[in-house]
């Protein structure tokens, strides 16, 4: 199903004998923030490079607004590559404005936009400095300004949070929320799963060049066996012979049961009540970290 925003279709790509992408497909709708998650070498960066036209996939393609992407479309995309890179000797304002110009702004509009974004990202006092004079974290902010300066309709950010302090993480998250609210499609990758969980509504998990999961956190949870914690004032033996559920662990907090999809929790509750007074009965909410581990280990 096409989103009408960014649609990645069946991407295949090899580097020599190494299969980098093996049928990656997903979409990012306008106003949506999608997190791309996966271990190193899973294919996140190659996918993003293919979206930006830097890698030409062996097979498959990338669509924007329902058509194959042309160079004109890419001028309305903002990109932050995994390996950061800007001109070390160029002054911040000139540099950010230059990238705005490459994306079609005239000089005056480019200068204005560069000033606004540098200011917004806390570098308003340093517009005349050379990039090389900035700390690593501040250079990263400039990189972000370059990705944002032309008001892109699609943001592709490869590990944008890597190396940022908590304050910068908050301000970047805020920027992403604002851009999405304004209709920008946002695709970003991260290893910081708690961040992805906080920022994204949807997550795409890639593993060995394939998408192994794609959906909202709730949808992903529904695909996993539920974890049910039951505390009964009795030995955990009551739970050993349950149908459709088995014990994951047992301790002072009661037993943690893995419940197969389709099993009625009421039968479990009744079994618990039969064993003794029930002190706690509730499903554990799996975080993205758990979901990710579970998906990748399958």
């Amino acid at each position, binding site marked *: 199903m*096409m989103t*009408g925003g960014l649609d990645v*279709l069946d991407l295949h*790509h090899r580097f020599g004998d190494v299969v980098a992408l093996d049928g990656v497909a997903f979409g990012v709708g306008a106003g949506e923030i999608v997190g791309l998650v996966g271990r190193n070498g899973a294919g996140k960066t190659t996918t993003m*490079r293919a979206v*930006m*036209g*830097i*890698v*030409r*996939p*062996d*097979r*498959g*393609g*990338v*669509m924007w607004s*329902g*058509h*194959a992407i042309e*160079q004109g479309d*890419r*001028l309305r*995309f903002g*990109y*932050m*590559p995994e*390996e*950061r*890179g*800007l*001109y*070390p*000797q*160029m002054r911040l304002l*000139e540099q950010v404005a*230059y*990238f705005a*110009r*490459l*994306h*079609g702004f005239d000089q005056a509009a480019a200068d204005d936009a560069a000033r606004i974004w540098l200011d917004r990202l806390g570098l308003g006092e340093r517009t005349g400095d050379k990039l090389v004079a900035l700390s690593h974290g501040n250079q990263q902010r400039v*990189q972000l300004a*370059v990705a944002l300066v032309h008001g892109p309709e699609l943001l592709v950010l490869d590990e944008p949070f890597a190396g940022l302090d908590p304050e910068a993480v908050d301000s970047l998250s805020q920027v992403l929320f604002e851009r999405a609210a304004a209709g920008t499609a946002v695709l970003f990758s991260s290893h910081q799963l708690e961040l992805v969980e906080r920022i994204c509504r949807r997550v795409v998990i890639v593993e060995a060049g394939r998408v192994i999961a794609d959906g909202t956190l709730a949808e992903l949870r529904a695909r996993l066996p539920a974890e049910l914690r039951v505390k009964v004032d009795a030995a955990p033996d009551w739970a050993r012979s349950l149908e459709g559920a088995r014990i994951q662990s047992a301790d002072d907090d009661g037993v943690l049961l893995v419940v197969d999809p389709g099993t009625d929790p009421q039968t479990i509750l009744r079994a618990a009540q039969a064993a003794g007074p029930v002190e706690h009965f509730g499903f554990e909410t799996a975080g993205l970290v758990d979901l990710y581990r579970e998906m990748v280990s399958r």
Partner: protein
Amino acid sequence: MNRTSLTRLVAGREITERLQGRLIRIMTLITVLVVVGGITIPGLIKGSSTPTRVGLVGAEAQALAPTLERTATAAKAKIALSNVSDGALARQQVTSGRLDAALSVGPSTARVDVKQSLDPTIRAVLQASVDSAHLRRALAQAHISVEKALPALTPVPLQAVALKPPPPDRTARTIAAIAAALLMYISLALYGTAVANGVAQEKTSRTAEVLLAAVRPNQLLSGKVLGIGLTGLGQLAIAALAGVIANAVAHSTNIPGSVWVLLPAFLVCFLAGFTLYAFAYAAAGALVSRQEEVQFVTLPLGLFLLVGYLLVYAVIAHPDATWVKVVSFLPPLMATVLPARIALGHIAPWEIPLDVLIMGVSIWATIRIASRVYANALIYSGARLSWKQALRLTDSAPTVKEPSRSAAA
């Protein structure tokens, strides 16, 4: 935004970055100083050449003064004569450096005292004057009038007829050939390296990937070459202007009009040579994994340029040799050899269209190969690549099938 305006934007950034750098000011200053120095210093040395001071000892020698003056003028030698009363005093003045030579003439002897050695031209002037006086005196003693003896003494003029006379401005043309080749060699090596360094910097600082998200590799490449080329041309123009002004002020060399008309040909050769080499240097710069490797990967290109420059001296020595003609058709050597051959005037009319064709085809081929190497190698983040590896890195074209509009909607 269309393709050319992106290229222009990239070129504009290159020019701005270079003009802001300190290196270009230093390089321009050095070039101007070398050019101005090269033109004015020989003029200053020549201008300061003082006449040879010759002391005439005794009445006989002093009687030679008018003959000496005439002979010296005819031989284009500058002498300053002074009378000295006796030989001891003259020798003392020569030793102390107040005189360069002291001439004393006897009835059948003549002697010139010098400190160390005598300039051959001055020696010839003195000899001719002494001979002439001796002859007149001998004729007078034999009672033969000079008028009678003169026809016998007048030498038969031997006329030398050059069947293939060198152009009258040969020296100027040779200098122009060397100057053009040297300038071509230095500027192509300099700006070629600048292109390679610029590309390597964008690659190693990973700026290339951000750029390639908005700009196509060929736009980036041509913008870079254009920007650095224009900067180089500007620098050359400043040096050339400084040279012309210095020459006008110092009146050092009278540059014949026939040399000035070579300038457009030189300019065309520079542009062609620069395009050929700049693209090759750009591709070389894209091969590196670290900035320090630029020197290594551009070495073969630098050697081609150096060989091309050195060959110019062989071209000057043997302008009509067959191998010179053959060599001047080899594209990497053409950039320096061709302007020299044009300057020397040893180029047949049929060769020019052939040269233009060969150069055009090589530029086209170089741009194609360089663009491919550049595009492939620029985002490759592994170790340094060989040319072959970079050419093979290429990905196949994407095979996206655009769904029908109804399906997309």
